[in-house]
C-alpha cells in the first residue's frame, strides 16, 4: 500500500472505518446501510476539502511520493514499441536519463526523461534520477538525431537536480547543461516537455526547454529546493514550507506566472493512485500539443520557441 502522507490521514482513517463497517454488516444481522451512506458522503466531502485545497507543501510531498509514477511508467502506457538507446559516446552511460524512440499514435517520436528508481536498489542504479554530464550529453545526442530524422521530441522531467558530485564537476556539469539549453534553442522539430514529479532547477531545465511545457497538477518546478532556499534565506532548512510557498513552485502558480502552458490534472489523491488514468490525462494534452506544433514549419518551430522564452521575465525601468 502506498505510504500515507500526513495531510491525507483523515481520509485514510475514514476509509478504514467504512471498510470495517462494511465487513461488519456482511457478517451480521444489523443493517448499517444508512450509517455507511452517511460516512461515504462525508468521505467524498473530506476528499474534496483536502485534495481540492492542497497547499504548496502538500504538493511537494506528492511530487516526492515514493510511489509516484516515473518516466518509464508513462512510456509504457503512452507509446508503442519503445526502444531505448544508450550512451553519450564521450564518457559513458547515465541511467538517470532514459532515452529512445517509439511510436506515439503511429508517429515516430524521440522520448527523453529523467528516471528515478522506486526502491533503493533501483535508485542506486539510477542515481536517484540525478544525472551526470553524460546524461545530458546523451540526451543532446538523441535530440540531434530526432532533428535529423524529423521526429518530435517529448521529454519527461522528474529530478531533484543535476547530481552535485565531484566527478560531475570534473566532467563539466555546467557546460553540459548550458550546451543543451543552447542547442535546444535551435532544434527544428517540436519539443514538448512534461514535468511529472520534481522539476529541480538546472538539472530539470537541461532537458526542459520546449515549445510547450506542461506540468502535472501536483508536480513542482523550482529554481532551488525549498530546503535549500530556506537554508540560504533564513538560515533554517526547517522553513522549507515557507520557502515552498514564497517561491511559487506549484503548477497552478507557474501557469499564472506564464512559465508553463498547461496544468495536467491528476486523479484524486495523486498520480500514484491511478497510473492508467494519469497516463490518459497526459495523453490528451500531449496529443493536442503535438497536433498544434505539427502545423508549424521548422523555421516557425524555432521562432516560436525563441519568442516564448524571450518574453519570460518581469522587470522595470527606473
Amino acid at each position, binding site marked *: 500500500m502506498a505510504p500515507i502522507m500526513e495531510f491525507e490521514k483523515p481520509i485514510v482513517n475514514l476509509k478504514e472505518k467504512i471498510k470495517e463497517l462494511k465487513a461488519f454488516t456482511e457478517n451480521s444481522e444489523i443493517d448499517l446501510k444508512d450509517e455507511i451512506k452517511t460516512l461515504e458522503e462525508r468521505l467524498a466531502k473530506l476528499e474534496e476539502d483536502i485534495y481540492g485545497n492542497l497547499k504548496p507543501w502538500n504538493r511537494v510531498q506528492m511530487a516526492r511520493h515514493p510511489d509516484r509514477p516515473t518516466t518509464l511508467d508513462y512510456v509504457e502506457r503512452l507509446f508503442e514499441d519503445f526502444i531505448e538507446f544508450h550512451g553519450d559516446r564521450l564518457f559513458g552511460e547515465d541511467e538517470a536519463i532514459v532515452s529512445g524512440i517509439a511510436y506515439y499514435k503511429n508517429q515516430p517520436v524521440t522520448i527523453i526523461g529523467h528516471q528515478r528508481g522506486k526502491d533503493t536498489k533501483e535508485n542506486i542504479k539510477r542515481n536517484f534520477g540525478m544525472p551526470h554530464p553524460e546524461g545530458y550529453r546523451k540526451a543532446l545526442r538523441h535530440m540531434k538525431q530526432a532533428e535529423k530524422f524529423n521526429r518530435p521530441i517529448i521529454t519527461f522531467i522528474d529530478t531533484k537536480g543535476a547530481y552535485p558530485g*565531484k566527478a560531475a564537476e570534473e566532467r563539466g556539469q555546467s*557546460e553540459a547543461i548550458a550546451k543543451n539549453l543552447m542547442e535546444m534553442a535551435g532544434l527544428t522539430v517540436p519539443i514538448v516537455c512534461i514535468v511529472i514529479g520534481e522539476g529541480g532547477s*538546472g538539472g530539470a531545465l537541461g532537458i526542459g526547454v520546449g515549445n510547450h511545457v506542461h506540468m502535472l497538477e501536483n508536480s513542482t518546478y523550482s529554481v532551488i529546493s525549498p530546503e535549500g532556499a530556506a537554508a540560504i534565506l533564513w538560515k533554517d532548512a526547517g522553513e522549507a514550507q515557507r520557502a515552498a510557498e514564497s*517561491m*511559487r513552485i506549484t503548477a497552478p502558480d507557474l501557469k499564472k506566472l506564464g512559465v508553463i502552458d498547461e496544468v495536467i490534472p491528476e486523479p484524486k489523491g495523486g498520480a500514484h493512485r491511478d497510473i492508467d488514468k494519469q497516463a490518459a490525462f497526459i495523453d490528451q494534452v500531449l496529443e493536442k500539443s503535438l497536433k498544434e506544433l505539427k502545423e508549424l514549419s521548422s523555421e516557425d518551430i524555432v521562432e516560436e520557441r525563441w519568442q516564448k522564452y524571450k518574453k519570460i521575465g518581469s522587470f522595470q525601468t*527606473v
Partner: protein
Amino acid sequence: MPLKDFFGKRKKYASIPSEKAKVDVPEGLMQKCDNCKQIYYRKEIVKSLYVCPNCGYHHPMTAWTRIESLFDEGTFQEWDAGLTSANPLNFPDYEEKIKKDRQKTGLNEAVVTGTGVIENNQVAFAVMDSHFRMGSMGSAIGEKITRAIEEARKESIPFIIFTASGGARMQEGLLSLMQMAKTSFAVKRFRDSGNLMISVMTHPTTGGVSASFASIGDYNFAEPGALIGFAGRRIIEQTIREKLPNDFQTAEFQLEHGQIDKVIHRHDMKKMLGKILSMHADGR
C-alpha cells in the same frame, strides 16, 4: 543531537569583532589583501587592478572599474542603465534588498551592458558585478544580457561577457531559472550568425550562470583563482561524504579538466582580448 556533535569541539562563544577592529586598516588609505592579509597602500592595489602585489590574488572588481580597465578611453557607452528588478512573486524582503544594493553599489542591477572599443575593436559587452546581490541572475539581468547579445547580432560585432555570479536569484523563483534558457537562446542566435562570443569567468561563477551563457562562448576564459562550478562545494561534500581538495572548482582546476580555454591574468586581459578580437576581425 547527533553523536558527532557530542564529541566535536563546540565553540562556546561567538566572537563578534568590535566596530574598531573591523576598520583596523584606516579607511581609504590602506587595504589588506583578502588572501595573504598583506597590507598595502590603497593607491598601489588600485593601480594593480586589485591584484595583490604580493600573492597575485585577484580581488573582485566593480563593474565600472572593470570597464575602465578594458576599454579604450572614453569609448564605452552604456545600454539599458535604468533596467532593474521588479518583485514578481511578492517575495518577502526582496524589494528592500534590491534597494539596499542599489544604494550600496550605485548600480540598478548586477550587470552593466553596453558597447565600446577594446584595442581598436568595437564590441558589445556585459560585465557582472558580484557586489550587487552576489551577481545572482533574475529577470532584469536576463533581459539586459539578452538585449545586449541581440544588439551585437544586429550590429554584427563581437560580444564579450565577464561573469560573476552565485547563480540564479531565488526571490524570482522559476522566472530566474528561465533566464538561463532565454540567454542561452540569444547566444545560439548570436553564434549561428557567425559572430564571436567570448566569456570570461571571474570569481565566482557558479550555478545557473555557469550552466548557461558563461560556459558557451566560442572561447571560455577565466581569471586566476576564480571559483567556477555548478554545485556548491558544501553540497558536494555533503553528497559524496568526502573532503574536496583546496583547488577544487578553481579556474586552474577547470583548465586542467578541459573545461576552459585559458586562464588570463587581469594585467594581461586587455591586450589578450585585443589580440584575439583583431585575429578574428582579420579573418572575416
